[in-house]
């Protein structure tokens, strides 16, 4: 059965820059996905929402330097609660922080200027089915 890919998108913690997360959310909708934008949230609320919504993907946006602490926490909580979906991150994240994030289970990190096509095709590949 074909259904829309569902993405739960959140700003991580107290970060105040929402432009990237909102724009990416709208563009993923253009790509045929269903996007639930949560606004600013902490890891437990993000995982709760992803479970309730039956998310296929969790998208996290950060600019404030909290990526190394709060990003992996989302993965950890999701795994604890049996939610096995890719967690992807975007925003201002230094290159050298990408390997540790991946080690902690983050599926992909997209920096500024990533075309939406790159994010969308990554999600489609990870989730394993395409949109309706």
């Amino acid at each position: 059965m074909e259904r829309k890919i569902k993405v739960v998108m959140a700003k991580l913690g107290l970060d105040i820059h929402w432009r990237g997360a909102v724009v990416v959310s709208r563009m993923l909708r253009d790509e045929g996905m269903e996007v639930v934008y949560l606004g600013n949230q902490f890891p437990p609320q993000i995982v709760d929402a992803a479970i309730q919504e039956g998310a296929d993907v969790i998208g996290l946006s950060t600019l404030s330097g909290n990526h190394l602490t709060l990003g992996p926490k989302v993965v950890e909580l999701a795994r604890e609660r049996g939610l096995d979906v890719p967690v992807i991150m975007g925003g201002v994240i230094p290159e050298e922080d990408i390997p540790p994030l991946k080690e902690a289970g983050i599926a992909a990190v997209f920096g500024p200027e990533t075309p939406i096509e790159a994010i969308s095709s990554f999600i489609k590949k990870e989730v394993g089915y395409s949109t309706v």
Partner: protein
Amino acid sequence: MTTNKTTLFDQASIKQIQQEKERWERETLKGGAGEREYLTDSGIPVKLLYTPEDIQDFDYLRDLGFSGEPPYVRGVYPNMYRGRLFTVRQIAGFGTPEDTNQRFKFLLRNGATGTSVVLDLPTIRGYDSDDPEAEGQVGACGVAIDSLEDMEALYEGIPIEKVSSNIVTHLPSTTVVLMAMFVVMAEKRGIPLEMLSGTNQNDFLMETTIGSSLEVLPPRASFRLQCDAIEYASKHLPRWNPVSYNGYNLREAGTTAVQEVAVAIANAIATCEELIRRGNKIDDFAKRLSFFWNLFNDFFEEIAKCRASRLVWHELMRDRFHAQNPRSHLMRFHVQTAGITLTKVEPYNNIARSAIQGLAAVLGGAQSLHIDSFDEAYSAPTEESALISIRTQQILQVETNVVNTVDPLAGSYYVEYLTREMAKRIRNYIAEIESRGGLVACVESGWLHREISDFAYKTQQDIESGKRPIVGLNYFPQETPPQTKVEVFRYPENAERIQKEKLARLRATRNQARVKEILAELRRKCHEDTNLIPYIKEAVKAHATLGEIEEVFREEFGLWQFPLV
């Protein structure tokens, strides 16, 4: 001012220019004006060439005049930068107050002429460093301030009676506490409050529209605190700017240049009306209202925006609020160059972008300037990149000679046309906001959030389709982008531990009964039509923390969910 008309062009000359222009188009230009539509960044159509015809009813004394006189298009002070150069005010803020104090001293040693501090996100949102919500975020993206003691450490050794202090307090709920801490610090140092000069941001749009958190104070409560801070400063801090109406972050989030100015002015209108309702006179406070603009790459539009914003403000003070003090008519503004225009790819190109935006600020008549650092798409600025920003400002001030004459682009047919067109569009957008019940109502309904998100979305589509060219990104991108080695700034890792230890010490040594008593008093006053600042000052003196005071606001005013877009 003379009542005779001082039009620059007579009708016969205009007619002759029109005829000659038609001939020129036919014989010389021959359809060479280009195929596509040319627009400014905010969507104003741009002609190939401007002539007196485009400003044919231009009246010099009415529309332009002289600097330091109405309508202030040419600048707020008569001698502008010859009298006082724009303040070199680079933002700093990271780690503990002690860490940021060191950066302040580095910047001042190298020629910064004012300080500007940004706060970490827990502080902005009113959480102490030991709050669970603050975990992993203490001292990141700004400095952590929890108590009066931290405020004192931040400005240790800095003569705040001489060097002006900008505090990027973002939200009114944080402003009222940090401003009170700053004032109490000055009182303890024995500095008369009339000597304090500086600015705090204090914009309820930062709480309700731009700076989002899980939940924030409702728009009306936040707006009330914004007005409390302005009212207090108008009575006690004559040289302090108690608000910096923040066009900057609106623009970063996604507005045109026109919307940026219109929304900020609509906010000022709302403030003026509220303070007048409280029994203040316009001239008691309007002279200290200040603004904050974001300058993008559309060079002439940004300069025209600065000029137009002064004109619209003056008209408003003259015709709507009938301000008598000329100082109330002066729109003074700080400029920060546009962070969002900086690219991660080929980062050194950002030095050129920021320098051009900084030049526009100078030609636009800014009072104070921050030039963004080239590494912003990587991290907060390193010491090296912050120094390049200061050096760029100094090159503008002493090597280019652009500061030696006032408003040098005045009289350009294009710049004058564009200034008037921008002013017209700003007035229209303000009228639209007012027709929707004013700015506070536009925030409550989520209308403003939608306007911002729609524009951000459209801009991104234009970048992805190549319609909006960005050098090195979608315009001549390199097949293999060079791996420029950019040194990344690292936030100090021990800030959270140090701040927690300080808080534990503070809570163990202060007079708990006094803290409890004054917080209870503040709680009661939240529900009265009274200014809260004196009660907050008492709480600060008793060493109540920022988080404890904010908790009172959260409980008494309730929380509001940012409309998701």
